[in-house]
C-alpha cells in the first residue's frame, strides 16, 4: 500500500489505537492483525510508554512493522508466559481479543459454536478470556460485523460481559472493564446506565441502518452519532511503514 488515501482498514487501525489512549505504562496484548497494527500505531505516536512483546517472550522498546523480526537492539525485557500470567493477575494489562460472538453486554465467545458438550464447531476454547476480562481492561475487534457475530446470546461465555460482572457484585467485578469494541463498520462502547453496547461512531461511508441490520441485538444509538476519525496523512504514513505488506487491508470486510 503506498496510497496516501485513508482506507477502511486505516480507519479501523486508528480506532484500535485510540482504545489504548492514556493507558500509559502497561502491557498491551493485541490478538489479530488489525489489533496488532493499531497497538503499534498507538505506541509509535501518542502512547509511547506502552509495553509490547514480539508475540512471543521479548518486550520490545519500539513498535516494529508487522512481520518484522526483532533484532537484539529492539529488546527491552523478558515476558515468558509465566510473567504474562503474573502481569494479567496484577492488572497492568489491556488486551484486545477477537470475538466469534459478542452480545449486548460484551459477553464474548471464542470457545465453540453449539452446545459445549458436543459442539457443532470447536473453536479456540476459552483460552485466557475468563481471566483477562475479570482482571484487567479488555477491548474487542470484529473484522466482519454481522448478526452472527453480534448476537443476542453467545453460545458460551468466554470473556465476561457487564451483566455477568454485575451479578458477581462490586468486590469481584472491580477490575472488570470492557473499554471498546471496534468492528469494520464502527466503534462501540458500554457507557450507558446499564452497560448495554452503544454505538460511538460510524466509519466514513457506513450508514446507521447498515449497522442496525448487521447487529443481532438492539444497540443503544445516541442522538448525533459521530463519524470515526480518519487518520491524517502523517498517521497514514506511519501505518504504511508499520504495515508495508498491507496485511491489515486484507483483514477487513468493507
Amino acid at each position: 500500500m503506498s496510497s496516501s488515501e485513508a482506507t477502511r482498514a486505516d480507519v479501523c487501525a486508528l480506532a484500535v489505537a485510540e482504545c489504548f489512549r492514556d493507558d500509559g505504562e502497561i502491557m498491551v496484548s493485541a490478538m489479530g492483525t488489525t489489533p496488532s497494527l493499531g497497538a503499534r500505531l498507538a505506541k509509535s505516536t501518542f502512547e509511547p510508554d506502552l509495553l509490547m512483546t514480539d508475540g512471543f517472550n521479548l518486550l520490545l522498546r519500539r513498535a516494529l512493522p508487522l512481520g518484522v523480526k526483532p533484532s537484539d537492539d529492539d529488546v527491552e525485557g523478558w515476558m515468558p508466559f509465566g510473567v504474562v500470567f503474573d502481569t494479567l493477575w496484577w492488572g497492568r494489562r489491556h488486551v484486545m481479543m477477537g470475538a466469534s460472538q459478542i452480545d449486548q453486554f460484551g459477553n464474548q465467545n471464542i470457545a465453540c459454536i453449539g452446545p459445549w458438550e458436543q459442539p457443532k464447531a470447536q473453536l479456540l476454547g476459552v483460552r485466557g478470556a475468563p481471566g483477562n476480562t475479570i482482571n484487567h481492561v479488555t477491548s474487542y475487534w470484529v473484522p466482519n460485523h454481522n448478526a452472527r457475530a453480534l448476537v443476542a446470546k453467545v453460545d458460551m461465555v468466554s470473556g465476561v460481559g457487564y451483566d455477568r460482572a454485575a451479578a458477581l457484585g462490586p468486590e469481584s467485578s472491580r477490575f472488570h472493564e470492557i473499554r471498546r469494541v471496534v468492528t469494520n463498520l464502527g466503534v462501540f462502547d458500554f457507557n450507558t446506565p446499564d452497560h448495554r453496547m452503544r454505538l460511538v461512531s460510524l466509519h466514513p461511508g457506513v450508514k446507521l441502518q447498515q449497522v442496525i441490520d448487521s447487529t443481532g441485538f438492539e444497540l443503544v444509538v445516541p442522538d448525533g452519532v459521530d463519524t470515526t476519525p480518519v487518520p491524517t496523512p502523517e498517521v497514514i504514513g506511519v501505518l504504511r511503514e508499520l504495515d508495508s505488506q498491507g496485511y491489515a487491508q486484507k483483514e477487513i470486510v468493507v
Partner: protein
Amino acid sequence: MTVEQAVAEVTDGMTIGIGGWGSRRKPMAFVRALVRKGVKDLTVVSYGGPDIGILCATGQLKKAVYGFVSLDSIPLEPHFRKARQNGTLEAVELDEGMFLLGLRAAAQRLPFLPTRAGLGSDVLKINPHLKTVKSPYDDGEELVAVPALNVDVAFIHMNRADALGNGQALGRDPYFDNLFCMAAKKAYMSCEKIVPTDELVSGGPLQSLLINRMMVSGVVEAPGGTHFTECSPDYPRDEKLQREYAATAKDEEAWKAFRAKYLDVSEAEYQKAVTS
C-alpha cells in the same frame, strides 16, 4: 534409560502430565512411545498441542484437561477438534491461568489455589466440579478454588541434561515443565543431549537450569525428541510435517498412512523418516 523404559510406568487409565506449550517443546518421543505401547483410557493434563491430538486420533485418550489445544501456526488442533465435535472426548476446559494454578496447587500439595479467573464465565458452568471459596479475611471476596491437577506420570523435554537428571531449558520461555514434574508422582525427562554436569552448568545462564534431579525419576537422550514441534534454539517447528499431520484429520486413509510411517515405527526409524 530409553523412552520405552520410561513409558513402561504408564498403565491403562492413568493421568499423564505433558510439558511444553502448544506445538512448542512437546516431549513427542515419549508421546510416540505411548502410541507404540498402546495404553488406553488415558487422561492427559497439558497446555495441549499434537500430544493431545495424536492420542485423540489413536483412540488412547479418554479425557483431556487443558488450557487450550493448539498447533500455534495452526490455531486449532484438528484431531482434537474432530474428537470434540464427534463427542468422543471427555474434556475439562480451563482458563489458561486457572490451569497454571491447578499445576501449582498440585506441586505445592494443596487442594486448590484461589483466583478471580473464571468468575462470571461459563468455565464454571461446563465444569460443575469447580467450586468457589470465600476469603476468610475482611474483604470476604468470593474466588474460584482451582483444584490441584495431580498427575501420575509427567513427561518433559529439555535442551540439555546430565545423567543425574539436572535439566536445562535453553529457549527463551521455560514454560511450566518444572511444575509438571512436581505435580506428578513420577516424572521423566528427555533431552536433546546428555552432557557432563560441568558442561551443563557452563552451557547457559544458571536460570536455564529449570529442572533439578529431585524432580525427575529418569532421563533419556532423545535427539529430535520434540519433533515436529519446536525445540528452540536447537531446531524450529517442522511446519511441513505439522501441516501434513493436520491434514490427516480430514482423511482417514491419510491418517493411516501417517500413522504407519511416523508412529508405528521405532523412535530411530521416526528420526530417519523425518530427516531423509
